[in-house]
């Protein structure tokens, strides 16, 4: 194996990664606009609808029992009318990211499990957010993208990442601390570089960078919620990975969410229901 790359090397090579689809980036940037005009929406819907892979994934979820629709929605436009722009925006973003960011071959890395885990984290983050009265969409997106640095490492350094995965499994260590040992930085730092490169909204970038150390993120931001949601997705076995483990939790971050026993049980049930719907996106 070559010498370990530095974080600056990774940042330099980010350009060589598959491009984030334009539609996904545009959608991300509209996240900070409070009122997109309806003309923009129609235009966006028309452009998304041209991509059949994305449309099919989105419609599978939109027609799942979670949304409880009386009749089937058959187009992105219908979905926006019935579910609202922000719900559809999240789903389209997820479908676009999944369709366009393949992990590439890396021994021991399962793309399927990766997407299951991040969709589970997105579902859990929304479930927590619902209890706290926080807007759902940014939490979904932060959960969806929280481990995206891992995908970048898989693509850019498949051999070293395969060794990292193997060591974590053999020594039964956490993946994040094993990344630190093999690379000198972790997927959260890489996620932060990606967020900068793609100009993600600041609150999403903060969650990507600090979901393992929420005390270093913006106070009251999304990092603490994603931190806990990550653990919930692991604890519910949503990725169906035999050797997964619940990562260490920061007590202050969890306490700041103020979820009591009943709230926590409600969050778990809500997470499972949402996930059962989102997983349809995986086909």
């Amino acid at each position: 194996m070559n010498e370990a790359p530095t974080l600056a090397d990774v940042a330099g090579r980010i350009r060589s990664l598959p491009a984030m689809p334009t539609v996904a980036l545009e959608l991300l940037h509209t996240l900070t606009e409070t009122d997109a005009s309806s003309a923009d929406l129609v235009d966006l819907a028309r452009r998304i609808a041209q991509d059949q892979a994305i449309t099919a994934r989105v419609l599978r979820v939109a027609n799942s029992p979670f949304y409880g629709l009386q009749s089937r929605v058959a187009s992105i436009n219908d979905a926006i009318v019935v579910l609202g722009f922000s719900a559809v925006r999240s789903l389209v973003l997820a479908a676009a990211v999944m369709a366009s960011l393949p992990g590439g071959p890396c021994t021991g890395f399962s793309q399927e499990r990766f997407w299951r885990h991040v969709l589970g984290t997105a579902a859990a983050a929304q479930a927590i957010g619902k209890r706290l009265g926080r807007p759902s969409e940014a939490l979904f997106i932060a959960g969806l993208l929280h481990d995206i640095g891992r995908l970048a490492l898989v693509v850019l350094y498949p051999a070293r990442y395969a060794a990292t995965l193997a060591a974590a499994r053999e020594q039964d260590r956490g993946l994040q601390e094993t990344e630190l040992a093999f690379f000198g930085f972790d997927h959260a730092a890489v996620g932060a570089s990606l967020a900068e490169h793609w100009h993600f909204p600041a609150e999403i970038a903060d969650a990507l960078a600090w979901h393992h150390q929420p005390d270093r993120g913006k106070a009251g931001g999304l990092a603490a919620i994603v931190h806990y949601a990550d653990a919930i997705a692991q604890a519910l076995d949503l990725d169906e990975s035999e050797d997964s483990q619940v990562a260490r939790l920061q007590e202050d971050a969890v306490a700041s969410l103020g979820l009591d026993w009943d709230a926590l049980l409600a969050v778990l049930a809500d997470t499972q229901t949402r996930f059962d719907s989102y997983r349809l996106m995986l086909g």
Partner: protein
Amino acid sequence: MSDTPDTLRLPLDEVQPGAVLAEAVADARGTVLLPAGLALTEIHLASLRRRDIAMLTVVVPPDPAELARRREEIRERVLHLFRHSADDPAAQALLQAVLAFRQEQAQ
């Protein structure tokens, strides 16, 4: 890792009230009469008899020993998942809630 219950296809006459439908019941034209997951009452059964439904697929209730085994399996799995964090106070609360939730779901 899903705990799909065993199912049994039975003639309508042998189905007792309280049995839970494993599959939706549809008439000859494919119209759903009763949804899966419904606990059947005597009224449902009478209505199905009137509509000449002959067979039903119901959930086989797990026996207590099987249920206890499944709960233990879940407990071991959850403890395994929390093997590096069970001593964190914050993780402890999550562990207990997840255990309660997953055991409840298995029933």
